[in-house]
């Protein structure tokens, strides 16, 4: 299954919040064949997700792992929706 992994420094707070919002957006879009998870930076390197999501200050670390969505704010739904949809289209999920 297509996999999105949200990362943050500790894998406890911010990443989970973003994961929730991604799930919400996917539901809106009626996408159900995508798996979303969250983790800390160090465990992210061992995973193989199709898209990595993180706030901009850690996104540079993620880029080495694969396609990355970089966010300015983790509570800005519009920003997230815009960037996520663009990425999913690029990956031909949408």
């Amino acid at each position, binding site marked *: 299954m297509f996999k999105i992994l949200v990362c943050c*420094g500790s*894998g406890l707070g911010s990443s989970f919040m973003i994961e929730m919002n991604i799930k919400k957006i996917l539901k809106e879009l009626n996408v159900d064949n995508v798996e979303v998870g969250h983790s800390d930076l160090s465990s992210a390197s061992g995973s193989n997700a199709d898209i990595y999501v993180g706030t901009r200050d850690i996104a540079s670390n993620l880029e080495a792992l694969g396609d990355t969505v970089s966010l300015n704010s983790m509570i*800005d739904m519009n920003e997230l929706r815009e960037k996520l949809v663009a990425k999913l289209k690029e990956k031909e999920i949408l």
Partner: protein
Amino acid sequence: MQLNKRCIDILQRLRKSYDYIRTKELAVLYKVTPRTIRYDLDKIEKFLVKNGFEYLDRHHIRGVKLKKQKGLENFINNFINTETPYKYVYSKSERITIMILELLQANEPLKVGYFEKKLFISRNTVLKELDDIEKWLKKRNLNLIRKPRIGLLIEGSELDKRKAIIECTSENISLEEIYGYINRKIAMSKINNIQFELLFSEIDIDFLNSLINYAENELNKKFSDDGYGNIISHIAIMIKRLQLNKKIYIPDINIEGIKESKEYQVSKEIISRIEDKFNIKVPKVELDYIALHLLGAKSLKNSEVEENELSSIVEKMIEEIEFIYNVSFKDRNKIVDDLVVHLRPMIYRVKFGLHQKNPLHNKIITNYKELFLNTKSVARHLEDYLGTNINEHELSYIALHFGAALQNTVDNKNKNVKVIVVCGTGIGTAKMVASQLMKEFNVDIVDTISSREIRKVDNEDYDLIISTVDISEYSENDYVKISPLFLKKDYEKLKKFLQTKYEAKLNSDYILVDKLMKTIEKYCDIKDRGLLEYELMYELKENRKRFFNERGTYMLNDLLTREVIDLNVKARDWKEAIKKGTNLLLKKGCITDNYVSAIFNNFKEVGPYMVVAPGIVLAHARPEDGVNRLSMSLVTLSNPVKFGHKTNDPVNMIVTFAAVDNESHLKALSQLMELLMNTDDLNQVINATNKEAVLSVINKYSSN
């Protein structure tokens, strides 16, 4: 980090007023530049923060101020007494006590200069404080006489003087300390050392001790620590006064029946021994006073006196308490007996106006106010019987007994750790603590005793000693010392202690299973005990797991409660802002210092990613970085600070959270997330000036 003398002085000055002091003023005072003072303040601040206290309140016009904080007083006192290489600086009240005592005990007039040298204070300070002393003495029918070129002396009756001495000493020295002093010849603090020297200098304490032991043997009773301390200080003061050859006039006390009492005979013998030893003549009236003290001293047991009448009064009081609290005491007889033992000497004290201070009095009336008032109400039976009012200190002692009895009504079984509880008397405080222990822990109270009796207990009889007082014969590792009020920190301390030693017994599942087994046993024959226990245990665990899942763990308002919210806080930079949030959790013991450093490390290593949205920081680290309890705090700032985030600066709200695992906090966090995403509600929180407004928003998001 050590503070130098000037820093310590400044700290003391700040703490004396808890008000703004201008830097310039300090500079003039210490004859240094304002810049030096600012450096000093930096040092003090660093020192305070390092030890978990808040930053100084520094205002560019008003100056600098130390905020009142829990534990700060104690901390500073300890620091000054133990850590500094500089001499001890007496506080005003300490100085006044010392001066009063010296004046009362002096053989000839004392000069102002004497106090200047002794207390390291200026002449003006001495003179100013003498005014206070004069007022204090006046209330006690004593006059301070100041004669130019001759000095200071106190005039008044011998009885009033002695009362004043006793009042001064009992205010500042606990009787436990006297006992410790007698045993070890060292006081626990400096101020007390001076007082002890005044009280006992040139008196052979061992001799006094032998007198009391004699009295105990003759009267076939054992005094409690309080009683012991009272008698010994009374005798010590008496001897000193006689040695100083004061013209002694004490009114006769004419107590009916006192001459027939055995205590009177014992007092006679004590006096004759004192006369021989110190080569003094003791006036006859002193005999009555000692007898009175022996009668009034609380003893641990007394087989002689008839107590039917007293018992029936006590029963009445207990009945009413039962009625008020709608309970019925299990060990009713024992409660009656204990209270009678307590009341017998108390009655003597009340009748003869001997005032006994209850060191716990203030704490009792603040923490157990209702209990105290109810005690006061039921004590009217006793007051009718005595025909006089009972003072509040005595009442609070009685309240302790009721409190213990009430705590005890909670059913307790399966107590495995055998504990002996020790307090000054083995009656009041220890009982209270014992009942708390039984409520909170899986323990068996073997006995409650006074610290003087402890050496007689066979150490086969117990696993652990828990004491509210220092036990001089034992090293610190031999017993656990807790506060008589059984505060939260005591609970944590004991929990830690009991857990490491008796982990299995503490597990609540085991206790519950044990109870269930007993119930089952009553009605069934059990075929396989082990298996049944195992299955019950399994079901409990499953049930708890289900409960956990159903409950959805913690809601946002379970975590963000009033005490972890702080609004419009001042912070100079982002580090301070983070600390404002973590301090709230540190104070509650939810996290350790290490967790705070871990948060800072995160910022250092990963950058300001925790600035999750414009103006909002979500400060946290990993559970293993030092989290004691799942917790969260919320702080809003009066002035936004920069965190170095490209788009989300500046920050005006800090949410700190501490997770214990990867899941239990997620529900609350997702609710927080919902809140942050609703701009209106978020603004209401950020702009809130009172906690109600914040809590109402939080509650809105805290349902499933």
